[in-house]
């Protein structure tokens, strides 16, 4: 027996001992969470982890008959790693449910594993139109553009905007931003006069803005995240364009206002989560977030992750005693009017969430809810 064997043996013994000790106190149910903790998208993954830990600490302190443990694995937003993690989670018979991943690409690659092995998967952010269609095991806690696009188109039609320019990032999500929105604009009698995709992280939006200005639209509809959004808004103001800008909940992030400053004023967007919402669960989450991270208010994505974890925990509770992957899946599918910080969540027959959208506008450096 060499030193490595000894180490493995010691590790196994420690695992058995700690497992035994935990069993003696209270049964433990395990769930997995695959997310990017390093790499290009690590800032999102770290936020999810913080949100998950807040939700978990609250659950475990609330005197339930069992404790839950979340196994975090770093996928670096790389499909190779995501699939390997999925296999790892599937192999662990104690894991009865999985959260994640962050990007649609990694979520969908991993979903192939969860589909074949029969493991419920709940992503807080995967927005690919085909993600939930992969199998009965895939759920998501993000409003898709199938809901948001028409909602925004109606909102803009109500404001009397007829000629609309659309830009979106060149991702699976950006594609759905444009297609869902444009369809509803047409049925409302409006016209999409310009539509273009840009690659994420584009530094210079001015050629696109110049082209938009040439079409003289009544308003601009945008599908971007806060980094690109801030660039776009600043450069638009530099070029002296004052056309109203509308956006999706993906742009909802306090950092957008920090980066764009006064240039963000007057931007319209939809959101499912506003930290200023006086509902007790929202205020509880915002306070816990500030205390844990020392950051400002949480954005849309951590809020979605927080709700996703809570929905999963509630499903575990329903599946108790003897939770199995099948039981957890059925419990998830039965989720109805779950009171979360991103509004009440109900999964429809296609495992898509229906949520109430809030209209908001940037005013005085804040996102403020508006009625129209």
């Amino acid at each position, binding site marked *: 027996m060499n030193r490595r064997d000894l180490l493995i043996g010691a590790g196994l013994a420690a695992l058995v001992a700690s497992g035994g000790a935990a069993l003696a106190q209270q049964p433990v149910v395990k769930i997995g969470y695959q997310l990017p903790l*390093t790499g290009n998208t690590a800032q999102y993954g770290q936020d999810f982890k913080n949100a998950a830990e807040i939700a978990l600490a609250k659950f475990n302190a609330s005197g339930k008959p069992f404790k839950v443990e979340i196994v975090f694995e770093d996928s670096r937003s*790389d*499909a190779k*790693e995501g699939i*390997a993690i999925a*296999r790892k989670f599937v192999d662990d018979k104690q894991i009865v449910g999985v959260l994640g991943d962050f990007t649609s690409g990694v979520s*969908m690659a991993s979903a192939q594993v969860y589909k074949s092995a029969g493991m419920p998967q709940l992503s807080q952010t995967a927005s690919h*139109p085909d993600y939930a269609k992969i199998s009965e095991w895939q759920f998501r806690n993000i409003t898709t553009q199938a809901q948001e696009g028409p909602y925004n188109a109606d909102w803009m039609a109500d404001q009397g905007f007829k000629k609309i320019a659309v830009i979106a990032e060149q991702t*699976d999500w950006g594609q759905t931003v444009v297609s869902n929105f444009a369809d509803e604009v047409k049925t409302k009698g409006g016209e999409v006069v310009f539509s273009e995709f840009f690659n994420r992280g584009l530094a210079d939006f001015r050629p696109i803005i110049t082209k938009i200005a040439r079409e003289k639209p009544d308003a601009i509809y945008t599908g971007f995240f806060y980094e690109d959004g801030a660039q776009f808004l600043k450069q638009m103001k530099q070029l002296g364009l004052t056309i109203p800008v509308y956006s999706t909940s993906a742009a909802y992030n306090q950092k957008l206002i920090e980066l764009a400053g006064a240039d963000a004023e007057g931007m319209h967007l939809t959101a499912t989560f506003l930290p200023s919402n006086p509902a007790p669960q929202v205020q509880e989450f915002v306070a816990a977030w500030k205390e844990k991270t020392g950051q400002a208010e949480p954005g849309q994505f951590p809020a979605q992750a927080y709700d996703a974890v809570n929905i999963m925990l509630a499903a575990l509770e329903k599946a108790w005693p003897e939770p199995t992957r099948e039981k957890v899946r059925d419990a998830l599918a039965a989720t109805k009017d779950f009171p979360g910080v991103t509004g009440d969540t109900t999964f429809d027959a296609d495992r898509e969430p229906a949520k109430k959208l809030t209209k908001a506008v940037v005013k005085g450096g804040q996102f403020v809810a508006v009625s129209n």
Partner: protein
Amino acid sequence: MSDRLRPLLVVAAVLVLVLGVVPAVLGAFDRSYLYQVANLALIFVLLAASMHLVTGVAGLLQLGHAAFYGVGAYTAALLATDAGLSFGWTLPLAGLGAAFVAVLVALPTMRLVSIYFAVATLGIGQMLYLVMLNWVPVTKGPNGILITSGLTLFGYDLSRPASAYFVVAVVTLASLWVIHRLSHSYYGNALRSLREDDQCADAMGLDTVRLKIESFAVSGFFAGIAGALWAHTAGYISPADFSFPQSILILAMVVVGGLGSLPGAVIGALVLILLPEVLRPVGDFRNIIVGGVLFFSILLMPKGIIGEVSALDLVRRQLGGAWRGEGTKAGSEVGWR
């Protein structure tokens, strides 16, 4: 006698190890995760081996290899979904598709020498990536492609990681054998002469441009085969799988293993795929450790683990006078010849 026996023994040992010992050990653990990691490692062994032929043996510093891997994966995925072909057809066609693109890429770039060639392949790799991302009607763009048919061969469904392992292993071993025969032959020596001094090789009567295009095509073919293996084992591909960092990862495998050595490329791929997985329990520090291993392996072993030629020497030669601080003399090579 022993000289004839030795290669046979090596082949037998590799076959027993890859098709006997490894599956037996993995089977004993019975964890699909281990098979998954083994499959991934084998796919990258094939990618590193295919790059070894161009960069290690022929000495052409290639910075866009992941693009050929992507062309193969997309060819396989589109043939499997739109044309409904099975793995038995998509595998060779993916190789041929990638080889075809590699020849197209090689025709204009072969006139470039040294660092200019490297930058040109970097640009072409990026262009092919953007084609995958933005040619939405054909590649489905950022939506990626779902391959629902899985890995079927002669009507058998081999999608489970344990059975997929044998498919991936057999394809990889056969490809390695071909690459080994190509690089350890008179033909391989001709390629090596390009690496050492292509003008001298030209003067000796070798058709250097043709040799370079051929090595590019063969390398692209096997990268395409690796792409088909990835597409069918993963079940979903998107452009992000074939972006620039993947090219660098493959290059790092070849350099760490040792330029010009096929076993080196294999070991380099195993190290750079297995190390991040083994280090998973370490958490956030695992990437730093992998980076450290890369750094120190180049610092302490400039020739890689088992290399024929030092990576630093190759780069120095690629940069030519600029590296030695001589400046460019009138009439000396400035990118074209």
